[in-house]
């Protein structure tokens, strides 16, 4: 039987790659240290599969067909097409895990979701900036899950809790002995292409961290649902964190680091949900 060994979350500001050579040393050190810490934690879990949750930034999908959730079920996934990231990224393609991805899709349908599927995903900076910085060795099979965190209407926060629980159920019911880790990519606060572009809402970010540390699902969903329309549009990506949080049973959150980084326009956060911190693990 498969096991969800742990879950993580990390920011994916494109300027981390686009401006990498010119970022100030303290910013670079902060990013390298946080991702280095996360790399050690993930590699200690020896995952066979890494489920990565991120939005698609107009690479695979457009307004003619925009899924709320989409599962990458292909044998492999293409690397980032962005010119600022492709030359830096060490993989032209990444192996998928079509058997588990198919099981995940079937579980979703059984549990009242109708996600779209893709056999031919390109993974943009939302997926690949964390993977680039983590530089996992070996790179586990990647099962990408696209979450619409970019264009309204988006999945509600409550629905993201349900989606996270569905993923956990799919892992529990997969018959093979696989160790699976999860990475929610995105957030925390940022504002892109709107009048507040560049603004980081640190109180919102600190509140998110506090909520994941102590609050129940009702409080998190209520608070985020009220707050998200009032903070920068990129903050919508906190849904990736919510899904990871729900998959881990809403327990075990541990902040690795947080720093508002104006250089990359993002309140950058790194976190782990530790299975060992949970009670009643199966």
């Amino acid at each position, binding site marked *: 039987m498969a096991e969800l060994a742990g879950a993580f979350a990390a920011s994916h500001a494109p300027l981390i790659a686009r401006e990498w050579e010119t970022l100030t040393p303290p910013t670079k050190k902060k990013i390298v240290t946080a991702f280095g810490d996360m790399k050690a934690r993930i590699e200690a879990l020896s995952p066979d599969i890494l489920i990565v949750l991120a939005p698609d*930034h*107009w690479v695979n999908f*457009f*307004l*003619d067909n925009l899924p709320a959730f989409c599962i990458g079920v292909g044998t492999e996934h293409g690397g980032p097409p962005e*010119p600022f990231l492709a030359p830096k990224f060490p993989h032209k393609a990444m192996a998928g895990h079509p058997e588990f991805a198919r099981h995940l899709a079937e579980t979703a349908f059984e549990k009242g979701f109708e996600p779209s599927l893709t056999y031919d995903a390109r993974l943009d900076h939302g997926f690949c900036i964390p993977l680039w910085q983590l530089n996992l060795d070996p790179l586990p099979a990647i099962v990408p899950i696209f979450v619409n965190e*970019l*264009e*309204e209407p*988006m999945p509600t926060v409550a629905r993201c809790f349900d989606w996270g629980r569905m993923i956990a159920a799919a892992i529990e019911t997969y018959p093979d002995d696989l160790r699976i880790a999860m990475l929610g990519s995105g957030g925390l606060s940022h*504002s*892109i*292409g*709107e*009048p*507040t*572009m*560049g603004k980081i809402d640190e109180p919102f970010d600190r509140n998110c961290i506090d909520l994941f540390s102590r609050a129940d699902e009702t409080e998190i969903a209520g608070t985020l*649902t009220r707050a*998200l*329309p*009032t*903070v*920068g*549009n*990129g*903050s*919508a990506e906190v849904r990736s964190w919510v899904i990871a949080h729900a998959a881990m049973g809403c327990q075990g959150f541990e902040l690795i680091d947080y720093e508002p980084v104006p250089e990359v326009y993002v309140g950058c956060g790194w976190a782990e949900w530790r299975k060992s911190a949970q009670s009643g693990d199966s």
Partner: protein
Amino acid sequence: MTDYWLSKMMFDLQKSGDVQAWRADREPFLAQYPISEEMKQAVRDDDIAAIAPHVNAYLLRFYCGICGMEDAEFIAHLRRMPAPEKTANG
């Protein structure tokens, strides 16, 4: 209100990477899409304030990059716009 065809043109530009042709002459691109004359003129004029309410914010950012606009200039355009009552992320 989302302008589908204006968004489609920006999406196609991003996909094709046809940056130099776009920067040299926008008219052949504009002619391919049923975009309103008002929006075509906004594109010709780099009137970001007129365009922004009708396209996704991330798509707009990519588009302005294709036009050769640095972030500082893009942000200056955005700052001159009235702040929305709510951002589109709920």
